[in-house]
């Protein structure tokens, strides 16, 4: 079974790569380098903060978009070009097909996140080196401790160990979105419907925490409003939990237990949505 999953995952990955999705990396690099050049007129602290804001924001947008678009398109495409019938006529269980497809997409998302992180860290490092050089030149006649303090201020403003868990959570969020989109696509009739539904779920998911608080606080509201917020709280994932990068950029530290809980919750959502996708897809008439 694992061999079958591996083969399908590899094919899915290759297909997606052939669709030239990696051009997004080019756009991302342009975003990072362009914003870095534009922001050179700000102070270095402002510049580094903006660079992190833009790059991690772009990473979040691109991975989320890729997760939704890549997952929404594969099932209708496989039905249209008859690949699905070819595959399922062989001894390949339907859930293996879905697992292979999802694994291929996760592989692509992982590679994407790694490449974007590499571009981001490279641009950040280059800018840091440039500011360090400038600082050394500005402080060449200053006392060694003053130079040391100035250089430390530069390095403190650039790299922050918390950026890594922040990026990992962005990746987990994109995996969750891929799994959620897969669930929608198993009963959807077109990729357009899947994309629209996934986008709606994305927005509602970011409001889920508000709905949950509203529901559980016991505020006097009409019964149908209560029912609606309860449904939102129960059926949708809390996507705000995965927006830790915003706080990481601001300098907040992510405690290890919170990172692990968030990371694990992301994979639990992914596993449950996948299991439900397999359940629905097993009964779907093809």
């Amino acid at each position, binding site marked *: 079974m694992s061999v079958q999953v591996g083969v399908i995952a590899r094919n899915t990955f290759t297909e997606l790569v052939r669709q030239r999705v990696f051009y997004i990396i080019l756009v991302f690099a342009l975003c990072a380098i362009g914003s870095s050049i534009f*922001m050179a007129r*700000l*102070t270095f*602290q*402002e510049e580094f*903060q*903006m660079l*992190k*804001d*833009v790059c*991690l*924001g*772009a990473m*979040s*947008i691109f991975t989320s978009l890729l997760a939704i678009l890549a997952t929404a398109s594969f099932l209708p495409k496989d039905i249209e070009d008859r690949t699905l019938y070819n595959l399922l006529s062989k001894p390949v269980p339907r859930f293996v097909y879905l697992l292979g497809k999802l694994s291929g997409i996760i592989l692509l998302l992982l590679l994407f996140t790694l490449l974007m992180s590499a571009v981001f860290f490279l641009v950040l490092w280059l800018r840091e080196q440039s500011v360090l050089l400038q600082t050394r030149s500005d402080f060449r006649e200053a006392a060694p401790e003053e130079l040391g303090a100035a250089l430390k201020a530069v390095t403190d403003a650039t790299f922050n160990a918390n950026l890594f868990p922040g990026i990992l959570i962005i990746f987990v969020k994109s995996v969750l979105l891929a799994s959620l989109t897969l*669930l929608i696509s198993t*009963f959807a009739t077109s990729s357009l419907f899947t994309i629209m539904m996934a986008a709606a779920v*994305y*927005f509602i998911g*970011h*409001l889920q*925490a*508000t709905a*949950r608080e509203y529901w*559980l606080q016991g505020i006097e509201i009409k019964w149908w409003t209560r029912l609606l917020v309860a449904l939102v*709280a*129960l*059926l949708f994932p*809390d*996507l*705000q*939990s*995965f*927006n*830790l*990068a*915003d*706080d990481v*950029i*601001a*300098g*907040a*530290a*992510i*405690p290890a*237990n*919170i990172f692990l*809980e*968030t990371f694990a*919750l992301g994979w*639990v*959502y992914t596993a*449950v949505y996948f299991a*439900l996708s397999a*359940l*629905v897809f*097993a*009964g*779907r008439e093809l």
Partner: protein
Amino acid sequence: MIRQTIALLLLGIFGIIKMPAEKSLDAAQRQAGLRGTALDLDLREMVGQRGFLAALSGFRSPLAALLWIEAHNAWERTEWGRMAALFDAVTTLQPRSLLYWDMASWHMAWNASAAALQDRSQPSEALRIRNQRQYFKLGRDYLERGIKNNPESSFLYRSLGVLLRDKFEDHCGAGEAFLKASQLPGAPSYTGRFAGYELARCPGRERMAYELLRKLYETEPDGRKPALIITLKELEKRLDVPESQRISSDVY
């Protein structure tokens, strides 16, 4: 259709199971200072509908960055009122960013206040001075709100100390701010000295200032700066410290 109904029911059951985990994670994240931004109607008014939608969708930090750049452009055009409005939006979107609070305060208390004092369109000097003071207060307000959101930050207490010292000439307040900064993790060593210098100029706090500076003098040989020694000697005279207990007269 049956499978879809079962899937929906299972999703609901999963919802009930996941609820405690989500609630506990939410509480833990808030306790750790994460998810501190209030996405409410005040923010909606500040950033507009599209901005609010972006903030709701998890793009708070890129939105804050864009608004900060807009504020920078407003600075280049010396649009102080617009800058303050943009700073309010940015700090609401990213309340954990020390840089935003500090820079917003600096722009208001140093740049906007200086511009207000030199505003030739306002013939009354009294009104110009009043406007200047309002910008000082605005600068202080940013730092105080920043501290409220980041109580563990020595950096913002240090900035507040500098502002109170240089713009308000409030030596007692500045001393307290520097003292608080010096007690927080990661504080630069000079914050303790600055607290001593300012408290030395605060009526009724001279004894505390003396003890603080004396401790630094004794424990940090590298910290025996000329200003510290001069202040200590002045305090020894004012507090009538017995000759035998005074610092060596060999230094300065």
